[in-house]
């Protein structure tokens, strides 16, 4: 090992030590980045990075869609759209066994369509769907498992803040990434519903009588979500406006609809704005830290060395891909989805390009892997969040409930690796 390798290893050790002590991930990356850079080239240049880099990150127009998509999701939640999605889903799915679990999945998907975050989707749906499922005697493990898995749809079905950040890091078209997420997202919904039937069909309460009138009436309440999704994805697909403009339009429309329906007052709007801003800042902080950490890695030439090492292993393109995906799954135990994408994608992306994989396709694959990390034991962020909200359901019980969904996720991942066309055919039509 050369001296610069030692510095790089020391940097990673310091990074994980600080993170274990609950230092915000972005701050840990930033400080270690600056300190590591200083150890290679001196303090003056290292501190100068602090003067210029963070300000570039926060004023970068290509990132400014983040706060608006998040604001849209928060306004949607605060105007009761997620509850309506759940009610409407149930009105249609109640004749089936496990109807509430199935409607949780559709509601997660619908909410994912307007919300960019997986954890936020899981948190929201826990509050809404869990009490209902309990009331109808669903076992705790199934109820929480469904919510944990359904939550992961948040970062696959567009708009997705994680995909947007991936696009930014890899200079891949965000619009195409969003469109590429549609079919895998729908496939996920379908496979999750099948999982409910196959794995839990016997333990869930049977169907109720279907009431067509009630089902149709329920649709009248979810028009807002449909309108929002269609207009935003339509605007991006047709390229009428930039993704940032589409996001701002989405946020404003959600607010206007909420006010018009009497769901949002001045207080709720201000609260939504501050909440959305806090979530955005949490993401920007990681981005700021990742840039500073990235300069440190660059100066020690770490990404090049990792690329050379992985390519040199000579395991073939798919062997190397498998190593990378397993690495992400393991890291999913400690890092959240956004942090993983920001910290690790810059390190593995050069390998992926060198192996000739399509960057759009890889974006979907890596986001699905990261999602999987959110629900796999020993630690999954979604499971964690659900556990903090539903304190009486233990972690092992939730992990047990989510296990069948983990297995379907693996099957889906393999499908998309074997048949990239499932991901690619829709974005290809954009060209």
């Amino acid at each position, binding site marked *: 090992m050369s001296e610069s390798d030692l510095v790089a290893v020391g940097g990673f050790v310091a990074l994980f030590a600080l*993170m274990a*002590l*609950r*230092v*915000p*991930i*972005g*701050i*840990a990356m*930033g*400080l270690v980045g600056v300190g590591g850079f200083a150890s290679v080239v001196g303090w003056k240049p290292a*501190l*100068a990075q602090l*003067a*210029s880099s*963070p*300000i570039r990150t*926060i*004023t970068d*127009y290509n990132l*400014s869609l983040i*706060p*608006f998509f998040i*604001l849209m999701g928060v306004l949607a939640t605060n105007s*009761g759209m997620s*509850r309506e999605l759940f009610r409407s889903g149930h009105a249609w799915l109640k004749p089936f066994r496990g109807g509430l679990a199935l409607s949780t999945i559709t509601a997660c998907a619908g909410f994912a369509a307007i919300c960019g975050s997986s954890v936020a989707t899981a948190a929201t749906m*826990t*509050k809404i769907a*869990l*009490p209902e499922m309990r009331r109808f005697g669903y076992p705790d493990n199934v109820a929480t498992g469904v919510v944990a898995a359904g939550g992961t749809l948040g970062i696959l079905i567009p708009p997705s803040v994680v995909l947007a950040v991936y696009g930014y890091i890899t200079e891949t078209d965000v619009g195409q990434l969003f469109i590429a997420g549609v079919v895998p997202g729908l496939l996920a919904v379908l496979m999750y519903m099948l999982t409910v039937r196959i794995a839990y069909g016997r333990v869930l309460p049977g169907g109720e009588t279907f009431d067509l009138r009630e089902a149709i009436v329920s649709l009248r309440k979810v028009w807002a979500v449909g309108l929002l999704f269609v207009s935003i994805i339509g605007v991006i697909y047709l390229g*009428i*406006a930039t993704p940032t*403009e589409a996001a*701002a*339009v989405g946020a*404003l429309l959600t*607010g206007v609809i909420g006010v018009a329906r009497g*769901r949002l007052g001045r207080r709720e709007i*201000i*609260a939504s*704005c*501050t909440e*959305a*801003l*806090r979530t*955005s*800042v*949490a*993401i*920007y*902080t990681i981005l700021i830290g990742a840039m500073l950490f990235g300069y440190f890695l660059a100066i020690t030439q770490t990404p090049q060395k990792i690329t050379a090492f992985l390519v040199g292993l000579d395991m073939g393109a798919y062997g190397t891909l498998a190593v990378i995906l397993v690495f992400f799954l393991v890291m999913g*135990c*400690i*890092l959240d989805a*956004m942090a993983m994408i920001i910290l690790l994608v810059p390190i593995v992306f050069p390998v992926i390009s060198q192996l000739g994989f399509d960057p759009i396709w890889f974006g979907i694959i890596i986001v699905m892997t990261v999602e999987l990390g959110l629900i796999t034991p020993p*630690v999954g962020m979604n499971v*964690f*969040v659900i556990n*903090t*909200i539903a304190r009486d359901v233990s972690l092992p019980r939730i992990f047990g409930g989510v296990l069948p969904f983990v297995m379907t996720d693996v099957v889906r991942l393999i499908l998309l690796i074997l048949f990239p066309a499932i991901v690619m055919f829709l974005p290809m039509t954009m060209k």
Partner: protein
Amino acid sequence: MTRIARFLDTLSRMIEVLAGLMLAALTVVIVASAIGRYGFATPIPDAFDYSRLLIGAAITWGFASVGFRGSHIKVDLFALMLSPKARRWVDVFAWCVLLLFTVLLCWKMFGRVETTMVNGEGTSDLRMPVWPVMLLIWAGVAAAILTTTAKIVLMAMGYGSLEEHESIDDAAEGASYE
């Protein structure tokens, strides 16, 4: 809560509302600029530069808010295994590290604002001076020193923690619509 705790709380919440209103205003500006460009072929000059700079300002003011609320993305796994008392001091340590970063950032960023002012950097369309917005961005970081310190003081005094998600029971109270 003691008087000082209540004061710090009020101050931090005011900063938070200010930042939130900035985001709301920006949403409207960007939509207006998009409509102007695509709808009427009359873009608002410098909308591009000003909106990205003002988002920067909203972010640093939001940074101040997050410093107070504790909602940074962090690894909770190990902290949650600790006893509440030990966790409190880990939290205080973590936030002291955040404060260190914030102070460094504030110091170095001020130099950046100064050069922008001295060099007369301008926007691309109208060459309007950039430094006032830069100063606003910087002020957010300065406010973050204040709020982060407030959070550290409050946590050390035993008020509040870095936990963020409310439980189902708390959430039920909030669900007043329908």
